[in-house]
């Protein structure tokens, strides 16, 4: 099923596994290289309180113009060596691909302008919203909703969006419940069966569009899985240990994009990027303290340790005292990048020091931070790539994560509440009981996962 099968880590030396540098950097058309030795800011944004309709489209375009104009202006003033702009489309702009394309044009025009007049090198990432989550989507891999997504990719790519990404939702129909009930077996099914199958089809198509349009199939994120768990854990709804294990299990799912030909940079809101980078050597976008505007987290510093792009995830275009919020956010990203690049410029050993401080400052306080440690990600990744199938790999991911967390807690390298430890035992017990026979597992889960939201036929499962 895999086109490329990653059976070992791209990295052999943990010391080289570091922010700003990827073993397989990505070069963009204007010469900007991502993962080529320095970390760059990736700015994200959304609209303020307003509806998107045919009537409001002029306003919508004005908003995007204002946002990107403000961002480019500030990037230039702060002499940023390069900038990635992510355009995460809102649902109506994917339901109506022509709207997404129009927005892309407006955004790209401003970026072109700043490149020509001020030498600001920038790259546009386009992220359609995965509207297949809509119950009316007839099938995961064909029909109206699939078509609209692909038309959006192709149309925006033609208008200058160079990095193609998506937060795909294959398996989310099951996974939402898995998170709400902390049901790790359902999570396994959603990620390793539904998710990976969907990723393969989806990314085959995106890789094809990238080839046809001369653009870059960048990468996916398991945001709807891992970040949903993380945000609920932050509200104390679900245990942080559960969220940490789910995070690691999303690795196998997101890796499929790379197996099908994506080359990075991995999208920002998937912290599994650390593992993707370890396994594939491709560059990754990450988000940490500077994305608190979008969601609080316990991984504010450690997220930067191996990042190649540094993102704010999302912020509405509203006025803060210092300026519009996206401009404010970008300024913060730029300073974070400046610091990391200054350390890196003074030598790899210095970059490693900073990486390790970023790491150590968070990892002891939270299991979700702990599993992002470069050394931990290395070890778990090594276990994951031993697995023969996506199913097996995801199970290994979960079990290895549990082990790592338990050992860390025992050794005093991670402080976990006893309540949280109890859940690790629970997860371990449940995962261990799962059959090794994937077909049997699918039959069993298809039987037990009856729900209004989940329709096996959409995945060509009976």
């Amino acid at each position, binding site marked *: 099923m895999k086109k490329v099968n990653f059976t070992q880590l791209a990295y052999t030396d943990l010391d080289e596994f570091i922010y700003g540098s990827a073993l397989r950097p990505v070069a963009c058309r204007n010469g900007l290289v991502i993962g080529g030795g320095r970390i760059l800011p990736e700015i994200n944004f959304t*609209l303020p309180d307003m509806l998107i309709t045919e009537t409001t489209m002029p306003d919508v375009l004005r908003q995007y113009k204002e946002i990107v104009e403000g961002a480019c202006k500030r990037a230039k003033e702060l002499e940023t060596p390069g900038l990635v702009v992510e355009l995460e489309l809102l649902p109506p702009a994917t339901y109506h691909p022509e709207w997404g394309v129009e927005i892309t044009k407006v955004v790209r025009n401003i970026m072109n302008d700043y490149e020509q007049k001020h030498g600001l090198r920038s790259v546009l990432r386009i992220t359609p919203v995965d509207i297949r989550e809509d119950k009316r989507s007839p099938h995961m891999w064909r029909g109206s909703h699939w078509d609209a997504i692909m038309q959006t990719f192709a149309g925006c790519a033609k208008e200058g969006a160079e990095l193609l990404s998506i937060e795909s939702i294959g398996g989310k129909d099951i996974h939402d419940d898995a998170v709400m009930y902390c049901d790790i077996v359902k999570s396994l099914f959603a990620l390793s069966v539904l998710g990976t199958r969907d990723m393969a089809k989806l990314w085959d198509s995106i890789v094809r569009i990238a080839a046809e349009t001369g653009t870059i199939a960048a990468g996916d994120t398991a945001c709807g899985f891992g970040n949903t768990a993380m945000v609920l854990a932050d509200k104390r709804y679900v245990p942080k240990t559960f969220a940490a294990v789910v995070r690691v299990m999303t690795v196998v799912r997101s890796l499929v994009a790379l197996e099908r030909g994506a080359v990075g940079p991995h999208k920002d809101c998937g912290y599994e990027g650390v593992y993707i980078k370890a396994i594939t050597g491709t560059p990754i976008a990450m988000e940490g303290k500077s994305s608190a505007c979008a969601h609080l987290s316990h991984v504010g510093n450690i997220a930067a340790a191996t990042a190649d792009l540094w993102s704010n995830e999302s912020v*509405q275009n509203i006025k803060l005292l210092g300026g519009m919020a996206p401009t404010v956010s970008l300024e913060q990203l730029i300073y974070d990048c400046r610091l990391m690049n200054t350390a890196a410029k003074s030598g790899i050993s210095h970059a490693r020091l900073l990486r390790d401080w970023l790491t150590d400052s968070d990892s002891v306080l939270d299991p979700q931070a702990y599993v992002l440690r470069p050394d931990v990600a290395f070890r778990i990744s090594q276990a994951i790539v031993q697995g023969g199938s996506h199913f097996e790999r995801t199970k290994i991911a979960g079990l290895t994560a549990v082990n790592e967390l338990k050992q860390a807690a025992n050794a005093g390298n991670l402080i976990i509440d006893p309540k949280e430890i109890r859940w690790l035992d629970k997860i371990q017990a449940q995962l261990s009981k799962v059959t090794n026979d994937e077909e049997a597992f699918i039959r069993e889960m298809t039987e037990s996962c009856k729900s209004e939201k989940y329709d096996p036929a959409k995945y060509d499962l009976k």
Partner: protein
Amino acid sequence: MSEILNVISESLQEGDVDAVTEKVEEALNGGVSASTILHEGLLHGMDVMGQRWKNEEVYMPEVMIAARAMNAGMRVLKPHLLAAGVKPIGKVVLGTVKGDLHDIGKNLVNMMFVGSGFEVVDLGVDVNEKTFVQAITEHQPQIIAMAALLTTTMSEMRVVIEAVTTTGLRDQVKIMVGGAPLTQSFANAIGADAYAPDAAVAADIAKQMIGA
């Protein structure tokens, strides 16, 4: 509290669907009134879980699993409650607004309502104003609860409230709203009756609102 009610409450706290179903039936057969079973068995159990949640002793799934058992118990109990003329403390129509596919927050709120003794009509996600209006006419709820997770859908709440007002139904229902981009002042501005800053407190606020 009699032994059987105790068992119902505890089985519910453990999320044991089978035990709750069985013990509710047993209690009914034993002549305990449906109302007593509801309040001193099921809702008592949910109350304990709610307290344990507030004390940070348990996580949401444990509350959810208890609520699932509550639902099971209610399936047995409902005809008896109806027959005895016992009403739920309130009825809520719930949905995520048009253009918004976010589900999980709404589902949490649903369960919190159920666990507090409300009857819930869940309209799902991507619900337009017409469907909300229709649901008021059809289900006669005391409360409409709406969720929006996007800055570009939160104003659909205003559209719904306007539609409810235009159709002359505004006086019949209290309207509460929630979701990440919202604030109390937004809720005030669109004419909602209440704002729930968090799924966990939605049911408490609803209870206060209707004096239940």
